[in-house]
């Protein structure tokens, strides 16, 4: 029942907003739909905590501690981003960058994108997960090119081609997985269900599975933004409307990583050696290092934070690659805090670039003077994402680093250097944007800053105190994947 609500509300919202998305009250409908989805996800979470894992509709959908935690996070960030998008899109309309038809497209696709995200997470069928992940690209590609500028069209084209090709590799991986599973489970619908695959994972053919994992990692890894498959990510983040940058970073990357981790669990069961973990650690570390060095060369503020997302996805991939209960716990925590912090940063960045009329960091100055809340939001968000204590990012990065020192000491210097370089780059660029002589003007609508501080507040809370039920929940999920 709750599953039907979580899936049905955004789907219905997408259809409804396809009809009325251009009306003046459409942003409120959008936020309301996201709120109802979030409410349903809370009910679902409560149900899973009380009754344990469950499945629905002939086992096509399933919920366990790992995905229910991501469903709740996804629905929450989708809701707060919808709140942020209300004034943001109104200001864009005021500036003449979008018209009514494009707003209708925007609102409708926003809900459909949320739908594909929860479908990915809740689907028990690997094939449907693939379909939904491709659906996520299809629903956001026209949003990346929403402004129809040459740069945004180029970004959207790149996003479309690279992600479609990448995800096609993943389809080949799914076919290979099905090929291996069919031998054990027999042909038909059940051979692609995570739950069934998980039960027979030690009987699956290792050669086929290792080849399948390479394809799955490359395919889903393109969506995660792992280097060297990351080329679409900075462009798509920089050229689209900021709410889309926020949900790409906050939701899509997480969900793609979820798909990788689910595949890893199967492969680990089938193979003796730590093949998948090694690959993921390699890709993760490469992403962290490359992204950190690209950070300092950025001029566009959204591009810079997009590279920061690549860096953090690399950290998570590395953590899940290491495996083990602590690293998986830290990876999950990092997923949560990164998603919340990065979307909060994009909210402030969106309003900051609207106030100054540019995304070029050299021309954004003295935010704190004109609009203190935006300035403080950006400053605190940047400190949080850089892993300053007492924010939650510090906790998860600290856990990942100590585990790495313990189990893979060779990787620690790379991680530390990359984190240091990232700190210097981002801090050095954010500081003059926040303080000094102001270049910002007044916004025609009051900005949405409540979501920013709610997100940062949660991240701060997670840094100093993780509530016991949340710890328990993370532990259960970490046990599933660790």
């Amino acid at each position, binding site marked *: 029942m709750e599953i039907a609500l979580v899936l049905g509300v955004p789907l219905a919202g997408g259809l409804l907003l396809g009809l009325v998305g251009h009306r003046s009250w459409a942003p409120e409908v959008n936020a309301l739909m996201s709120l109802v989805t979030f409410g349903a996800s809370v009910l679902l979470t409560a149900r899973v905590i009380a009754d344990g894992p469950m499945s629905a509709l002939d086992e096509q959908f399933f919920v366990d501690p790992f995905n229910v935690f991501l469903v709740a996070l996804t629905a929450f960030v989708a809701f707060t981003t919808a709140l942020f998008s209300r004034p943001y899109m109104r200001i864009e309309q005021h500036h003449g960058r979008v018209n009514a038809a494009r707003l209708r497209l925007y609102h409708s696709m926003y809900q459909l994108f949320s739908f594909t995200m929860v479908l990915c997470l809740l689907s028990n069928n690997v094939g449907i997960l693939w379909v939904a992940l491709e659906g996520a690209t*299809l629903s956001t590609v026209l949003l990346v090119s929403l402004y129809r500028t040459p740069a945004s069209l*180029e970004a959207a084209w790149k996003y479309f081609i690279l992600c479609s090709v990448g995800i096609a590799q993943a389809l080949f991986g799914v076919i290979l997985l099905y090929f291996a599973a069919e031998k054990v489970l027999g*042909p038909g619908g059940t051979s692609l269900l995570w739950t069934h695959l998980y039960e027979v994972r030690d009987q699956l053919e290792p050669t086929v599975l290792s080849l399948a994992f390479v394809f799955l990692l490359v395919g889903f890894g393109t969506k995660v933004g792992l280097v060297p498959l990351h080329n679409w990510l900075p462009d798509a983040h920089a050229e689209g409307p900021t709410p889309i940058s926020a949900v790409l970073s906050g939701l899509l990357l997480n969900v793609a990583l979820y798909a990788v981790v689910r595949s890893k669990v199967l492969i680990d069961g089938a193979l003796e050696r730590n093949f998948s973990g090694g690959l993921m650690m390699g890709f993760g570390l490469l992403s962290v290092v490359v992204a950190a060095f690209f950070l300092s060369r950025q001029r566009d503020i959204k591009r810079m934070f997009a590279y920061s997302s690549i860096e953090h996805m690399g950290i998570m991939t590395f953590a899940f690659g290491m495996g083990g209960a602590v690293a998986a716990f830290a990876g999950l925590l990092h997923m949560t805090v990164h998603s919340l912090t990065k979307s909060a940063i994009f909210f402030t960045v969106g309003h900051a670039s609207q106030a100054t009329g540019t995304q070029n960091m050299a021309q954004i100055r003295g935010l704190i003077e004109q609009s203190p809340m935006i300035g403080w939001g950006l400053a605190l968000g940047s400190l949080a994402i850089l892993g300053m204590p007492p924010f939650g990012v510090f906790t998860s990065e600290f856990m990942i680093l100590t585990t790495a020192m313990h189990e893979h000491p060779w990787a620690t210097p790379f991680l530390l250097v990359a984190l240091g370089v990232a700190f210097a780059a981002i801090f050095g660029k954010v500081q003059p944007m926040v303080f000094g002589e102001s270049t910002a003007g007044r916004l025609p609508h009051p900005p949405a800053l409540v979501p920013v501080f709610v997100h940062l507040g949660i991240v701060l809370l997670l840094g100093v105190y993780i509530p016991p039920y949340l710890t328990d929940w993370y532990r259960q999920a970490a046990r599933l994947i660790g």
Partner: protein
Amino acid sequence: MPLLAQFVNLLAAFLLLLAFAMLSQRRVLTLIKLLAWQGAALALSTAIVAWSTGQTHLYWSALLTVLLKVILIPWVLHRLIDRLFVRWDVETLINIPTTMLIGIGLVIFAFALATPITQMATTLTRSTLGIALASVLLSFLMMIVRRKAVPQVIGFLAMENGLFFAATSATYGMPLVVELGVALDVLVGTFIFGIFFFHIREQFDSLDIRHMETLKED
């Protein structure tokens, strides 16, 4: 080897031949025709596998392939290039003989990669998995070397054909719900590509993606 299996092998060879033909073809209209032929070969081989093994859901898959990949998508592409006036020749990044040589290398690589899997397969059509992988890689190559937007999309669709062929040849096809989902994605994707062509043309007065190489790190 039974006659039907041989026939499927023949169609697989035809598929590979078409992949090479696409790689060497300069004209957009001919490319679309080749894509439709590839779809037809795919549908026919799916139907034969369905008939010889009694897997009825494969008939639906074959029907879907005919509707989507032989009729609808080529027709949409045809209409698009009529409206956009892009019948001219396709430029390639590398000259065609070199591309063909790289293609042969890819085929050898694909067969080497598929050998361990093929030995395990018990299906009627196991020897075709290498060909399926080869045509996926050849379409990939085509996407890399073409500079215009339309041939890139055709390369993407050809890649999807190769993947479907891999699914039928290695496993007798994926569950129907997955195939329907994939078909829906391909269909929606094609329409979005179409919308894109108009936006790109409006903005750049051409469908040459060389205009779209400004976003990069310096």
